[in-house]
């Protein structure tokens, strides 16, 4: 074993072992998935629509119980949602609370943290500032654009100070320009707060652009087809990174694996 591999193993924060998920007695959504995520890493899981990606994230997060296999966070078995992992949903409109202002939405999870009022307030301010919504702190989510609403959802997750952010196609419901903005915002937050990121997406370019490693899923019942390292230079920049020959080679390889033409998959 090389020194690098030993170091990586020591730094492993999340481990998924032989995970299987069946809905009730019926459909097998996930056949068998094993993967690991290191501290500070950006890992993507990319797969075709209907590949059980949301189910996988919910199971990793402890919101669903696996049929078999296990999820380990810092070598501890996950049986209920642990405070170190926060899931950001695709549909911000359904996950935000419309009766609360931006500030109150971001402060919502802190009700469960034993912190002083001042400390909570500064966590909230910092998170709202980090996503660039300070000027909209008093607004309600429905007064904001879709991209801004997703920023609120991300700020809410960041304020909770998780070790890992699980992102379930978080940029699938916004337009292309906003999408690029949110991608870069995610990279900034990772650098600024040292949060480990695990993203599921059907967008291959997005996965390659953001990630250190990509796991490619098969259609359901899902297995991992391949694990691909993304040795593109940091920091990533939209135009430069996406026109890099190595970027194009990686995305074409993944496209071949998924068995689609190298075109952007339309949003569902």
């Amino acid at each position, binding site marked *: 074993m090389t020194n690098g591999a030993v170091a990586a193993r020591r730094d492993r924060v999340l481990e998924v072992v032989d995970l299987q998920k069946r809905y009730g007695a019926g459909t097998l959504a996930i056949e068998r998935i094993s993967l690991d995520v290191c501290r500070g890493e950006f890992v993507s899981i990319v797969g075709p629509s209907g590949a059980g990606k949301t189910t996988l994230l*919910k199971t990793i997060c402890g919101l669903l119980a696996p049929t078999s296999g296990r999820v380990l966070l810092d070598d501890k078995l996950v049986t209920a949602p642990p405070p170190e992992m926060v*899931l950001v949903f695709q549909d911000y409109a359904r996950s935000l609370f419309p009766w609360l202002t931006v500030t109150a939405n971001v402060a919502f999870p802190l009700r469960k943290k034993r912190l002083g009022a001042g400390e909570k307030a500064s966590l909230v301010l910092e998170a709202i500032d980090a996503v660039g919504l300070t000027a909209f702190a008093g607004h309600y989510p429905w007064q904001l654009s879709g991209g801004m609403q997703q920023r609120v959802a991300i700020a809410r997750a960041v304020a909770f100070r998780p070790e890992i952010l699980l992102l379930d196609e978080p940029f699938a419901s916004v337009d292309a320009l906003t999408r690029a903005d949110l991608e870069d915002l995610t990279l900034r937050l990772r650098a600024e707060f040292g949060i480990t990121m695990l993203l599921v997406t059907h967008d291959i370019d997005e996965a390659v652009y953001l990630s250190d490693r990509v796991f490619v899923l098969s259609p359901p019942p899902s297995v991992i087809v391949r694990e691909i390292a993304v040795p593109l230079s940091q920091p990533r920049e939209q135009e430069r990174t996406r026109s890099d020959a190595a970027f194009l080679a990686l995305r074409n390889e993944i496209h071949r694996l998924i068995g689609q033409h190298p075109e952007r998959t339309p949003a569902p």
Partner: protein
Amino acid sequence: MRGRRLLGLATIVVLLAAWELAARAGGNVYVPPPSQIAVTFVHEWFSPQFGQEAVPSIWRLLAGFVIATIVGVALGVAIGVSDALYRTLDPVLQVLRALPPTAVIPVGILLLGIGDSMKVAVIVFGAVWPILVNSVDGARSVSSERLDTARNFGFSRLETIVAVTFPSALPQIFAGLRVGLALAFIMIVISEMVGGSNGLGYAILSAQRTFSIPEMYAGIVLLAILGYGLNALFTLLERRVLAWHLGSTAVTR
């Protein structure tokens, strides 16, 4: 906005004028002109009689409605969040809500007599179903993302109900409360007509029985004014509590 309101008021004035003319021309003793009803109204209700007849009605109405609200919302949310309770109780609810609530007045008189407790009880029975059924629906239709979000952040089941389910269900709860209030209003009048020794329903019916026709109409006018006022108060409360909902639906429209 102001123009529209004026138009509405003008319609009322025209209708009253037509009634006035028709009543004076036709001369039916059972349909007095509005001017006579107005005079009787001032004489009847700007008097101690307001305290004797109207205040008890209002008091019973509010007591019944408040009890129906507490029972309906608490039970409704509890049924809405529990699949077992829902499957057990939903058929019973569907039968009971389909029953015309006036049908239970004889039962109420049998069990409770004709006093205040009977009237409050039948108001509760009349008003509770729409509140209950809407609370159940509201609590059941909370998006799974919101519930998962709360669970993800470590909220217990009870904390999630208080912080997420209840506020999410509020728009539907208020829709139920509006129907419940209308039913409570109907139930107070009928229960006082059927079994009572005071109250507006009783006053209207006894005026009719003693051929005090303008007095009967004056009582009906007071009911209309009370109903309008209560509805206006309710709308005011709804606009305050549901400002976020009205705003968000206006945006998506």
